[in-house]
């Protein structure tokens, strides 16, 4: 199955969601709580995260789109990113790198 990664505020998190990246919650310079990538959240996890003031989590959610819809969405994304970078000089390596990272992020 294909998955998409999204960032959610804690209020929208629910048990059963899967972490797309390791979660490390720090407060005042001390690590309070951590969970590994791929962990499936439980109600206990959510309570612990709330108690440690976790604000956002990176979630992997199933991508139910058809291959055709994925292709349409990718084309739309590419068009918009090209529009934003219309005045950019891609001979500049750092601008090209940012362009690539934005496209990767949008298509994740």
């Amino acid at each position, binding site marked *: 199955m294909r998955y998409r990664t999204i960032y959610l505020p804690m209020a929208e998190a629910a048990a059963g969601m899967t972490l797309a990246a390791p979660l490390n919650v720090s407060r005042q310079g001390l690590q309070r709580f951590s969970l590994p990538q791929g962990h499936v959240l439980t109600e206990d996890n959510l309570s612990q995260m709330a108690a440690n003031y976790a604000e956002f989590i*990176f979630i992997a959610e199933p991508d139910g789109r058809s291959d055709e819809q994925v292709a349409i969405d990718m084309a739309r994304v590419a068009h918009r990113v090209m529009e*934003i970078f219309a005045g950019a000089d891609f001979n500049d390596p750092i601008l090209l790198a940012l362009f690539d990272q934005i496209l990767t992020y949008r298509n994740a």
Partner: protein
Amino acid sequence: MRVTPITKTEVISRSSELPSLPLIVAEILATLDDPECNIHDLCSYIVHDPVIAARVLSQANRAAYRSRSTVRDIYTAASLIGFTQIREISLLSSMAMFVNCSFQRTSNNYWKHSVAVGVCAQEVALHISAPIFSEMALVGGLLHDIGQLWLNRFCPEEFAATIEFALAYSVGIEEAEREQFGVDHAQIGAWLAENWQLPASIVAAIRCHHRPELALNELLVPVVSIAEVFTNALDIGAPVENRVTRLSSAACTVLGLKVDDSIQPLLGRMEARSAYANTIFCRDVD
């Protein structure tokens, strides 16, 4: 170009027609590294400001939702969500009201962009573990384009034409402004910030956010500059006007920021936090 270029004297003179910057902004910034400062002083102020108080209680009740209890007083809210969040909510709420009162034709897109750059500046600083107070990054981001509001209020037709030109010819807005007005919004914003007696680092961040090479020794400058580029690249705030024409490699180098796969989580946090902040604080701006 406009017949006479805009001068500092004109900017300061006309800004006297605007309300004063909220006192709480200067007070929070002045006490960031004051060990004597305590949360009770700030709470005592908030109790008398119904808009900020409502925001603080709302945020505290979001944090408390899993305990199924209701937070009803500012001091309990403060202990639940902490000093840093209280300061941030106070800054965002007071700045939203200031912008709304000062520049009545402020578009929602302007404020969304400013909130996004403020939040993204905080995330950039966190990502590279920069020794910058997050409140400074937030205020620097919120005010970085304040010069555009001044132009929109006092030179509306010429400013609108400048934006159209910049979009039509894919040039940076600041280049188009210098062509039209002899000065760009970054310089105008810096003059305003100096007049409001904001910290020198914020003045520099506003002045140099399009040309961070001019002041790389002041860390807040590359932080706000990069935050704005990333905000535009992520298409947050002003969908029609978002453009990326430049990213300072010197700014990235001085911060130790590598533009590679390691910024993917940073982009996610920037987008999520900006969207969240905008759902809460854009209701204060019509």
